[in-house]
């Protein structure tokens, strides 16, 4: 959709491609806040942060991504790159930019939307009658006050009650996966806090956390929603969440699987979708 407004690049990263609906909602929120959005992500826009073992390859990826954003800034006036992923944001700020001349600045989507909240508030017309515990991490606050920004945005939604969840180590759940026991314990603590606070929703901030909590949607009568989904709901947009349904036992339709190559789907994607929730490893007393 062509939108008149300040041109920006929305850099959603690599792993957000599991959550296409959340990318689309993010674009919609930015457009409704008055921006002309060009979305970019996936391997061709990799920041390189996940490739510490390949310093030359990671360096080349970073250079390619910066040069693409430079071209968008110079040719289309997209001098602001709006991030979603905290890894991408920190990597750009701390490592990519000092090693590559960047013709743009960066800001996180929560910062940009908070700045234009006055444009969004009149559009938040549908009460969202939920009591949501916000799943939080202590990391990324070095760069963006993410927990405060998300709480501020969610507090604009009519009908929504908010509870701040425990602040966990790491910048998002995927960072904890490499430390034995850390991720299951974190999920257990958040879920236990949600039950104790009589929350009916666990609200995720980042995609990697949403990935881990999706399989728990509906357990203990608690729904799992991302913050953009709650904002969209308040706008009257009931967005689907394919990844969440797949993690709960569903599967893409056969046409989509064939389009994605059936053998690769079975080898690469299905094992992730059928992986048990980390909660099962952490808290036997909480499960059936």
């Amino acid at each position, binding site marked *: 959709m062509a939108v008149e407004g300040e041109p920006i690049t929305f850099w*959603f990263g*690599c*792993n957000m*491609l599991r959550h*296409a609906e959340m*990318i689309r909602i993010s674009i919609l929120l930015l457009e409704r806040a008055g921006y002309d959005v060009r*979305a970019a*992500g*996936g*391997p*061709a*826009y990799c920041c*390189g942060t*996940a490739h*510490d*073992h390949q*310093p030359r390859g*990671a*360096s080349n990826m970073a*250079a390619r991504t910066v040069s693409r954003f430079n071209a968008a800034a110079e040719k289309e006036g997209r001098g602001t790159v709006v991030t979603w992923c*905290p890894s991408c*944001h920190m990597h*750009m*700020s*701390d*490592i990519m*930019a*000092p*090693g*590559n*001349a*960047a013709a*743009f*600045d*960066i*800001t996180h989507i929560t*910062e940009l939307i908070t700045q234009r909240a006055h444009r969004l508030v009149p559009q938040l017309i549908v009460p969202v009658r939920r009591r949501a515990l916000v799943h939080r*991490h*202590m*990391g990324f*606050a*070095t*760069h963006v006050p993410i927990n405060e920004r998300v709480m501020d945005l969610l507090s604009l939604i009519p009908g929504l009650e908010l509870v701040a969840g425990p602040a966990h*180590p790491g*910048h998002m759940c995927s*960072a*904890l996966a*490499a*430390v034995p*026991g*850390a991720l299951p314990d974190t999920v257990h603590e958040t879920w236990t806090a949600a039950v104790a606070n009589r929350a009916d929703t666990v609200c995720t901030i980042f995609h990697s956390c949403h990935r881990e909590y999706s399989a728990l949607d509906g357990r203990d009568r608690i729904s799992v929603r991302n913050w953009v989904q709650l904002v969209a709901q308040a706008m009257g947009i009931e967005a689907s969440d*394919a990844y969440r349904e797949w993690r709960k036992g569903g599967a*893409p339709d056969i046409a*989509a699987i064939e*389009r*994605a190559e059936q053998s*690769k*789907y079975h080898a*690469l994607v299905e094992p*992730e979708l059928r992986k048990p929730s980390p909660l099962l490893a952490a808290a036997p007393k909480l499960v059936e």
Partner: protein
Amino acid sequence: MTKLTAARANSTEAYLAEAGGELAALCTACGACFSACPMVARVGLGRADPKSMTEGLRRLAVGQSAHPDTVAWVGACTKSGQCVEACPERSAGLDAMLLIRIAKQRAINHSRQLPAKQDPTYFPRIKIFARLQLSDEELAKWL
């Protein structure tokens, strides 16, 4: 809005090589970052000496080997960022989280005390997820 710093090197690889030594030189090995780290107890290092741990951090950041306890701590960094505020040399330009990040990379690629996490399915899996959900137009425009 984060105003990006001007480039200091002609690649991230070159920058990291420079920055490791610079940050290690600013570090006084006081142990404050280690004491503030929420992962210390998680990896069983609650009784370790913070000063000797951060002395090892400086060694790793310049490509030297360090005590296995220091390597285990650096390897367990989850980017919680508590070290940044805790560092008394922050005002002098020491970004403790970046120092630990560089030390971790060096422990993988130089002293080889940490194993490389190689996942050849990382990008292929992401591409399959994209093809499962994106329209042809989105695939063409976004990726």
